[in-house]
Each structure stands twice: as C-alpha cells, then as structure tokens.
C-alpha cells in the first residue's frame, strides 16, 4: 500500500488526534502542576455519562458531555469543601459512580447499537471531516482562553493567597480551568476515549518537565510530545492493526520513557 493512500485514509484521524494532543500539552501541564490527574479521570468518566444522556435525550453529544462534565466538576468543588471525606477518596467514589452510571445508561439504549468500547478507548478512525472542524475550533477556543488568562492561571497555581492579594479573581480562574478541562475531555471522547485521556494529559507533561526551564516551555514540549505520540500511534495502528487510542498512549509512554534518560533541568 502506498504512502499516499495511508495519508488519505488517515488524514481526518490524524488531524483530529493532533488537535487533541496540541491542547492536551498545556492543559496536561496544569493537571500535573495542580495535581489534578485524579480529578481529570473523574471528569472523563462523567463524560461517558454525558454521552449516554445525549443518546437518551437525543441531544448533541458534545453539548451533553460538556454540561455533564461541568456539573460534576462544580459538584466536586462543592463537596471538597466538606472535611469528612478526603479529596482522593471523594474522587474515587464519584469517578466510579459516574462510570458505572454511564455504562448502565449506555446499555439501556436499545434503539441503537452503541459501541461502548469506542467511548471507553476512542475510535479515532471513525471521525469524519465535520469532527475535525469541530475539534480544531474547540482547540482554538481553548488555546485562546489559555493565552488570555495565562498569567492568572499560572499565578493561582503557584500560590492562591498571593494571587488573590495581587488582584486575581481566584474562584473564577479556577472555574475557567475546569471549563477548559471539560472542553478538552469532550473532544477526547471521540478520539482517545474517556479511559485514556488522562494519560494523554499526564504523560506528555511529565515528560516535558524534564526538558523545560519555564512553565511555557513545559507546556510547549508537552504539546510536541503529544503530537509526536499521535503520529507514532497512528502509524503503529496502521502497520500492526492495533487499536488507535491505546497505540497513541503506548507511543506517549515510550516518549516519556525516553525523557527519563535525560538529566532533569531544575
């Protein structure tokens, strides 16, 4: 099979994957800095519930997923105020409640044959050009908002007290970060799936940490690692006929492993 055919067939998948990986760079950096990996997992699982609701209520998939992610995120922030249950315990509970509910809700859809596997692990090869446009539009929105509020976002990440004294609207900035994460997860549900998105957030950022001296460098390197992972993963999938989402994650893991060989910069 010629290279042209491969590119033609994979073009939508490649472009969709690249859009997600590009945004996952800086967003993953925040997830790592703020230790939100488990939080991201919980939101991703609630995305599955959102997808089930979209099918049941016959509404737009993306809107239903964003709405569900945001409701769960805001509820979590509210629940974290109480001191009875530790944060990670709470996340562990909510993550799996939403996952279980999502799977049950999907299994109840008898009208359509729902491919649960595609939601859990992504089905990049099934995306069409319309998805590509939506994903790149979403990516542009997320990157624009990140750039616009970059200093505030970074400032609350370093120290919330100092940020507040210096006039940063801390709760609003925190909410923005969650909104952006919800948007990204929504985009990821069609590409790498809800179970794998956290790895695409965390691994490139963790790898980039060893190469970067500034937060911006780390975000940039994370995007780069993500982009290369998508390309390698798709290539692997094409040649070895492996599932795409997991192939991308394996590629990201290999790249992360390579960064470990380098002595960390401070």
């Amino acid at each position, binding site marked *: 099979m010629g290279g042209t055919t491969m590119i033609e067939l994979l073009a939508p998948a490649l472009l969709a994957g690249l859009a997600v990986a590009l945004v996952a760079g800086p967003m993953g950096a925040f997830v*790592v*800095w703020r*230790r939100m990996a488990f939080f991201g997992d919980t939101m991703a699982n609630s995305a599955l519930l959102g997808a089930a609701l979209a099918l049941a209520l016959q509404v737009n998939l993306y809107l239903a997923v964003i709405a569900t992610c945001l409701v769960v995120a805001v509820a979590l922030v509210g629940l974290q105020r109480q001191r009875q249950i530790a944060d990670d315990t709470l996340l562990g509970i909510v993550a799996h409640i939403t996952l279980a509910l999502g799977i049950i809700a999907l299994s109840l859809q008898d009208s359509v044959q729902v491919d649960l596997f595609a939601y859990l692990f992504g089905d990049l090869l099934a995306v069409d050009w319309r998805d590509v446009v939506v994903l790149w539009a979403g990516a542009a929105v997320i990157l624009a908002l990140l750039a616009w509020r970059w*200093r505030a976002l*970074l*400032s609350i*990440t*370093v*120290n*919330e*007290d*100092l*940020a*507040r*004294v*210096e006039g940063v609207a801390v709760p609003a900035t925190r909410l923005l970060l969650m909104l952006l994460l919800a948007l990204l997860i929504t985009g990821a549900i069609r590409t790498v799936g809800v179970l794998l998105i956290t790895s695409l957030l965390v691994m490139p950022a*963790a790898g980039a*940490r060893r190469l*970067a*001296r*500034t*937060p911006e*460098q*780390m975000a940039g390197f994370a995007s780069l690692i993500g982009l290369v992972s998508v390309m390698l993963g798709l290539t692997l999938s094409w040649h070895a006929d492996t599932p795409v989402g997991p192939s991308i994650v394996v590629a990201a893991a290999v790249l992360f492993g390579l960064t470990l060989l380098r002595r960390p*910069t*401070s």
Partner: protein
Amino acid sequence: MTQALVTVEDAALTLGGQAVLENVSLTLEPGRITTLIGPNGAGKSTLARLVLGLASPDRGRVIRRPGLTLGYMPQHLRVDESLPLTVDRFLWLAAPGHTRARRDALQRTGVAHLRRRAVRQLSGGEMQRVLLARALLRKPDLLVLDEPAQGVDVAGQDALYGLLGQVRDETGCGILLISHDLHLVMARTDEVVCLHHHVCCSGTPEAVSRDPAYQRLFGTHGMANLALYTHHHDHDHDLSGDVHGGEHHHGAHDHGASHDGGHHHD
C-alpha cells in the same frame, strides 16, 4: 490626618470552634510601621489575613481604602516540584512589564544574582528576599510581612529592617510586620500591637514594653524574655499561665490558615 489604609473594627473570627480573634481593632496608616507581636497561635497570621482580605471576620468589619494596592510576603512559600519556574518568571506573575523593574526589585533586596535561578533551588533566606522583591514590585500602599526575618541571619535581619524603613521613607507606604525578633524590630517600628486573640496593649515600643499586659504575656524582662520565649519553648510556662490551655490548637489554626502547606515555623 491621612486616610487610613486599612481599618479593622471589632473583628472576631472563629476557626474550627476556636475563637482565634475576639474584638480586635487595628488601624494601619500610610508611612507607619506597625508590628504585631504575640505568642505562637495568638492569631497574628489570621489578623494579617483579615487585613489582606484573605479571610473575612465573623463579626465586626475590615475597611480597606478604595484602590488600595497590597504587597504580601507570606511566611513560607513552596513551589511544586513539577513546576519549572525561574525567579524572574515568579516575579513576572506579580507584575508583567519590563525585565528592568524585576531586576531592580531583586537588586533592592540584594538578590539580583538569583534572577535566572530556579525558585525551587533557593535557600530559605534567599526565598524570603525574593518574596520581598515580589511584594515591592507592585509598589504597594500597604506592605504586609509575615515573619520576614525567618531563615535570615542577624546581619541579614538588620539589613532587612533597614530596607523596610528605607522603603517606607521613600514611598510613604504603610507596613504591617509580624515578628518575633523584637530586639531588632522594636527600634524600627512606630507602633507595636500585642495580640493574644484580643489586643492586649498597643502603642509605641517603649510604652508597650512597660505595659503590665505585655509583661504578663511575655514576662517582666520584656524583650529579652520574649526572644527567649520564641526560641525555647521549655521556658515559657510562666509567661503564658492563663494562655496555655488550647494554645496548640490555636497554633494549628493560625498557621494552617496562613498557607496550604501547614508548615510550622518554629
């Protein structure tokens, strides 16, 4: 008569069932250095947080002059290992703008050579100076410093208080200091407020050191004893007689509230 920068009126605050502050009033004016003293857990950091707007009183009120710019130097600040951040970027968070301004601020606090260093590599004393540079960078109307002399040797402390006096003279800003190091502070402060959940006494350093309330709290030898008290806890029983019950609880709240790490500063 100049307008007060911040006025605290009859403020009361209860944290975790403990009355940390009771009927506390405080007025901070431009061009004056006010020092808060008191035993560990007396509510000093909490009062500073009220002044900064990081906490709200349960009763009473805190009035800030409209348009007030605050500079805050927290007791301690730890940057997460996962976040690569140079001193220069750290200062940029407080005030984007010319590199020149950041270099000048660092020059001022005697750490210009650290500008390109990673924040995580700084020693305690270096971090204090960088934090002070960040606070000064904003040209604050009111500078709030929580235990600024921590981790700084005696010569460094002398220089630090000298610098604060200089800043006050040049900019006319008000300064609120929380300190244990009374030997050095007393000579350079305009007003001393002795706090133990309520204001025990306040006034000029001379007046306060003669005040019976002060002597009850810190012993009849005044300053000398206070210095001893802060560094040798086994000598403090006669100083705190009525004070002792629940002091450790107060301590936990006081410092827990002042920064996320819950780091204690003995």
